[in-house]
């Protein structure tokens, strides 16, 4: 009943808008969520493939080197509570992001220090690093380098940018994840984007 999605997303449309990460069509994702709720492993696997990269990258910026552990915990909770989820595709991405965020912040509180000490970045970059074979021609920047740059933003800007541009939430869903108004999230994202552009510009002229 479910057509398998290309596992690596290579043949997704090449003209993806920049702020829209590779993603399943909305109705497709909604159908996959329903199938996973019914216990279909293939559907869950597809869901994981679709949601995990954005989640992991978001958590990487949020908590640093422990992102993988937090992502695992997040999936355990998703598995446990999947049957309780109701909502559309954006709602699902937001739901998972919310769970991940809560676990990430709990983790930070228990560790009680900010993640991005220079030593941890090395580990983190190794974790988040991509296969060289997957690097595409137009990418002057690796995913890990991009995440590192985003991680230099103030946290609320970084989160807003990641939720919007990497996880692919709209302003309303991102606002729900962050417990803010959509306008506040837009403002954070806007400032974050402007700061990133400035950082890139500086990097170019240095």
């Amino acid at each position, binding site marked *: 009943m479910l057509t398998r999605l290309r596992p690596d997303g290579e043949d997704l449309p090449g003209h993806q808008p920049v702020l829209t990460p590779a993603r399943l069509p909305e109705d497709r994702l909604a159908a996959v969520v329903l199938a996973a709720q019914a216990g279909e492993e293939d559907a869950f696997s597809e869901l994981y493939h679709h949601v995990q990269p954005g989640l992991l990258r978001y958590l990487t910026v949020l908590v640093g080197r422990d992102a993988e552990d937090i992502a695992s915990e997040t999936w355990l909770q998703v598995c446990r509570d999947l049957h309780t989820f109701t909502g559309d595709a954006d709602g699902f991405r937001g739901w998972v992001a919310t769970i991940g965020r809560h676990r990430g912040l709990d983790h930070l509180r228990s560790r009680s220090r900010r993640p991005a000490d220079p030593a941890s970045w090395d580990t983190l970059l190794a974790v988040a690093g991509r296969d060289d074979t*997957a690097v595409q021609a137009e990418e002057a920047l690796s995913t890990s380098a991009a995440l590192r740059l985003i991680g230099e933003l103030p946290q609320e800007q970084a989160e807003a940018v990641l939720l919007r541009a990497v996880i692919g939430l709209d302003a309303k869903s991102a606002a729900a994840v962050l417990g803010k108004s959509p306008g506040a999230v837009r403002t954070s994202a806007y400032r974050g984007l402007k700061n990133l*552009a400035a950082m890139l510009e500086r990097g170019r002229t240095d």
Partner: protein
Amino acid sequence: MTIPGGHGSRPDPDEQELARAVDDSLALQQLLAAAAAPPSSAELKGRSRALAAFRAAHRRRRRTAGATPVEGAGTSRTPLARVGRFSAAQFTVACAALVVLLGGTAVAAAAGQLPPALQAAVSELFNGSEPAGDHPSPKPTGQPAPLPSGMHNLPPAPSGTVSTPAGSPAAPSGASTLSSSAAGHATAAQLAGLCQAYRAAGDPPGLLSTPGFAPLVDAAGGTAAVDGFCARLPTPSGTGTPSGSAPSAGPTTPAGTATPSGSATSTGTALAAPPVPHRTGTAGPGRASGTPGHPVRSQARSGGAPSRPSSAHRTGKPQPTKR
């Protein structure tokens, strides 16, 4: 330039501003493309673990939905209500239990993520799981083997566990029987760990519905049977562990020198219950409580060979038990 959510006919001005901010900088576009690039295989390596959790959660949910109420603990609650009253702290316990099963304990424990009681249990489980000293190493022959020492290191069960007066002879072969009945030492140790986690959590509603406890529920034969099952698992017998206590050694004197009598006796009693086909959950407590002055040893040894706890039916491989 499209921004997610900007699909309305009249996009928010702020959304347009966002889009413009991106359009203005090619470098920024490249950065965002890189940040949202297709995943590497490294990013997806947790898939099998997540899938295992998914499978367990689904199996568990189905079982809970179809479970028949059995006399005993917690049956007044509906499964759904139990899940609903599940708290975050309890989830931590469940997660931790699953992490134990999946082998990531070092990570969780090192990060100090586990509740203290569980943390202690986990440490013991992993630090003490090497057979100590003169313990024979586990043989795959189906011969009853001594319990891995980790099992003996588990702290005593809470006072709710079945207990009999001190001085009752302990069943010398109880522990051996248990480990031989499970698929292997790892399984027995895991079950002990899960029981430990279950006790440490104090039976919060919904705990057993979590994927992490699925193996325990499987082994016990249902949520309602978990209490009994855990009570039958040997709890720490301290110095009372006879290293040569393989049942084939014949009727040895109970090594009950410093054995906490409660746990040892309840173990022996439960082990003496008929091997499986019907529910053995109530046999242990019922018999144990009524025998203040009666030695339990006759039950424990009556067959000349150890019987096995009900967990045996999980493996589907009955041990060579002569009765």
